[in-house]
């Protein structure tokens, strides 16, 4: 089997076109996903059964079925119903782009909601009690204490979810979208160089995940600043036993 570097160079611009679509899909559905995940997580963390029930079922469904099935249900499934085709939603559901956004958003919302829920429950209870002692109402607590703290706690795990979503976005190629994978498969249909093109596509995915990792590193550094704080005024001759490992390391 011969290896053709030429095709990689020849088709890199088209792969990069695909990369834009992939980025767009991840970004747009990621943002919609967060917007959906926050209320879901707050409801899920509630102690009232009837409030917990809906997010529980929602998360159960979207985590329990494959993303591919969800995409097919939105794209091919919905369009089989006359009622859907005649409704005001059709101009949106007609386009594979929006079907992909809908499926990805709903899917990532389920995973993120679960992440945020566990983060909310991981906030030290002392901090909530302190907020209560200060006389903060529940909405103020959510805004000032719970949300920012949960966000900081969930960040590393959420970065993971975004990278998983990046790779899940390859499934957009199954509904005619020309994302990185769709583009690679269309090129391969012409050149019959699957190894070369999939290698190139893989490298583009790697580059994008490097960007995402860097972005989340930066955000972690910002939002969890207290963990990275360095004392500059610690005396050199301080008894080592008095040093705070966590702060001074």
């Amino acid at each position, binding site marked *: *089997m011969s290896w053709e570097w030429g095709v990689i160079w020849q088709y890199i611009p088209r792969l990069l076109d695909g990369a834009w679509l992939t980025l767009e899909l991840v970004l747009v559905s990621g943002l919609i996903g967060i917007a959906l995940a926050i209320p879901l997580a707050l409801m899920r963390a509630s102690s009232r059964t009837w409030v917990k029930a809906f997010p529980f079922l929602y998360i159960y469904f979207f985590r329990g079925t494959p993303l591919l099935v969800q995409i097919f249900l939105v794209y*091919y499934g919905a*369009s*089989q119903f006359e009622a859907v*085709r005649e409704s005001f939603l059709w101009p949106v559901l*007609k386009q*594979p782009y929006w079907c992909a956004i809908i499926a990805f958003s709903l899917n990532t919302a389920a995973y993120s909601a679960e992440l945020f829920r566990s983060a909310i429950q991981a906030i030290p209870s002392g901090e909530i009690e302190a907020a209560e002692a200060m006389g903060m109402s529940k909405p103020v607590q959510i805004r000032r204490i719970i949300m920012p703290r949960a966000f900081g706690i969930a960040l590393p795990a959420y970065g993971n979810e975004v990278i998983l979503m990046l790779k899940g976005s390859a499934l957009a190629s*199954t509904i*005619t979208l020309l994302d990185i994978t769709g583009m690679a*498969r*269309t090129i*391969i*249909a*012409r*050149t*019959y160089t*699957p190894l070369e093109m999939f290698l190139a596509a893989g490298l583009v995915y790697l580059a994008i995940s490097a960007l995402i990792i860097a972005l989340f590193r930066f955000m972690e550094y910002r939002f969890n600043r207290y963990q990275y704080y360095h004392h500059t005024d610690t005396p050199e001759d301080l008894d080592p036993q008095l040093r705070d490992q966590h702060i001074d390391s």
Partner: protein
Amino acid sequence: MMKIRKLFAVAALITGGLMAAQVATADDKIRIATEGAYAPFNMVDSSGELIGFDVEIAKALCAQMKADCEIVAQDWDGIIPGLRARKYDAIIASMSITEERMRVVDFSEKYYSNVLAFVTADGSSVVVTKEGLKGKTVGAQRATIAGQYLEDNLGDVVDVKLYDTQDNAYLDLTSGRLDALLSDKFPAYDWLRTDGGKGFAFNGEDIDINDEIGIAVRKGDALKDKFSTAIKAIVADGTYAKINEKYFPFSIY
């Protein structure tokens, strides 16, 4: 430590054994790949068996060659890479003989000839010319002659949508996402007679692109000539016509 070594040794023995077994089957059997999603040429029946024109031709050819054959299903866009990776020895899956494919595989003589045709809603106002299709959404299966014809000849004026399977393209034609579908004519002929194809019809003239369908084998494989001889033999002795008749009222050779 000793234990781990033993474990490795056993694992190596097992994998070695399996590989030997695989090589053995590859030696005395011709493994033939088909897609299984291209009615009426190759599809899967309710019991999971591969059936269709291609499959019957494959069986007739094997009978003619007195060879032991195994027919396997393989997704279309990985079907040539799979052949080159020796997962099977031949592709009988309604594959057009093209220059691009000839660079990587060898083809037997043709076993039928294909033309392309547009399918639209019955009575649709779409005129299937370059002007008439301007700004329309037209679909085809990815990695097919129809898909490449669309990209090469109409790619600059129409929105080309490429599908993994022909079935998915039909779904989008019926849902109205596609204004027209460019397809190989014979499978579309078959689909138009099913319930799913109600309300749709061929539109415009057939596009004859000199498209011959052959059997793909690895470059330099002697199977190529064996298949070609066998094709001529089954055409000559009437076996081919009998199979043809079951699927189409006209000859497709």
